[in-house]
């Protein structure tokens, strides 16, 4: 079995999750499908066996190097990401695996490996920058509706806590990743207003303000009035 380190240094790698297996009609090698399915079963067994030992989820990582004619080619990669964008529910989760080393690796063909990663269990006590950001995005990106003042207060309170703790990186990350198109305008205004005093400390504040302005205009609202004072 190759070491995790050597695999992670291959020419390129693609993180995929179990849901891909069996629907991978864009993977040119039928052999790959077979091995991937086998690995998924192995990983699933491993998950069952090890779930009491901090195994959280299993993931498959497909590697290709040296010979782009075998395994996934660029077209396959493009299709894969298109599939992700089209319906992410096919996959256990998105993003790259967090495991440092593969648990299972099977060589298939001369230059390809399929590797199963078993990830550590999610620990809510462990500091993770993105946990707060993810939670905030879920809080802010809600279907368009009339939000209550209490809903707005919740957004303000969460951001204010980060301000008091001086976690400006979190706020900056939120402003980078939250979609103004998917958030009620009142939430966006609240986020801008409460952070206004720290606009020079929060990277990307001005860019976020500009994105909000675009969304306000797109909705036919008076951006000059809604954003008054939010300059400088």
């Amino acid at each position, binding site marked *: 079995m190759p070491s995790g380190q050597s695999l992670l240094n291959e020419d390129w790698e693609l993180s995929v999750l179990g849901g891909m297996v069996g629907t991978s009609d864009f993977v040119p090698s039928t052999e790959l499908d077979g091995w991937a399915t086998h690995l998924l079963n192995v990983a699933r067994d491993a998950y069952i066996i090890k779930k009491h030992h901090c195994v959280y989820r299993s993931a498959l990582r497909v590697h290709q190097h040296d010979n782009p004619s075998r395994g996934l080619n660029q077209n396959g990669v493009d299709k894969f990401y298109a599939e992700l964008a089209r319906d992410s529910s096919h996959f256990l989760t998105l993003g790259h695996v967090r495991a440092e080393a593969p648990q299972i690796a099977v060589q298939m063909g001369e230059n390809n490996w399929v590797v199963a990663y078993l990830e550590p269990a999610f620990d809510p006590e462990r500091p993770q920058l993105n946990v707060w950001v993810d939670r905030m995005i879920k809080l802010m990106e809600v279907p368009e509706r009339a939000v209550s003042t209490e809903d707005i207060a919740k957004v303000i309170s969460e951001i204010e806590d980060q301000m008091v703790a001086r976690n*400006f990186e979190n706020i900056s990350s939120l402003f980078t990743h939250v979609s103004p198109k998917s958030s009620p305008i*009142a939430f966006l205004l609240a986020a801008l207003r409460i952070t206004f005093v720290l606009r020079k400390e929060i990277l990307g504040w001005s860019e976020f303000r500009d994105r909000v302005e675009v969304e306000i205009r797109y909705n036919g609202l008076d951006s000059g009035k809604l954003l008054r004072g939010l300059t400088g």
Partner: protein
Amino acid sequence: MLSDGNISHPKYMDSHVGIAIKKIRENQNHVGLLYRDSTGVKLCHLAFHHDLRIEAARPDYCWAVASVFAGDDLSAQVFAGRLIVLSEKQGYIPNEIPYGFHSEGTAFNTKGEFVGFPKAGMGLTCATFILEMFHSMAFPIANLETWIDRDSDLEWQNVIVETLQELYPEHAKAVANYRGSVRVRPEEVVACAITMDPPTAFERATQLAGSILSEIEAASKI
């Protein structure tokens, strides 16, 4: 200009944000913010040193809708949301607000900490607390650069220092160093909050404040 609480109770305010004022005694008025949440209309006011209060709207105040939000209900709702957070975090922010005449124009220090005034004796009055709430959220309702010193304000500051001396002698000593600071009076803050073209300059605010004083004086005699 204002609604008399005896005639129209502020709990009937149908906007998200308003401002309320009452006469406490001769030469002493008190001002607070009204806001609406799902349970009704609340009054938020800095009563004195380390004493921010959030309570149900009371009829002994004259009040008006904050016209600075005229035609912009979204921003008024956001401002009300900020006040809800303030009310929920009592003991976390409110109890730290000291009473004083000078705040250097901000209730936040450069590190982003709330009400972290750098020097002893700095603080807010009931009126400047409201200005800070507006200004910290980029709603500058008063053009403070146009405000000027008035002799009668020094007299008022001396009275406040004497009152503080009885309850908080150490803080009073520090506050006394800021006597002579420019004062924004409660009725002037009301004037700034009910004009539709902020920020309001000193001359316009004092002009409106004269009418406001007449109204709260009349209401206090009912």
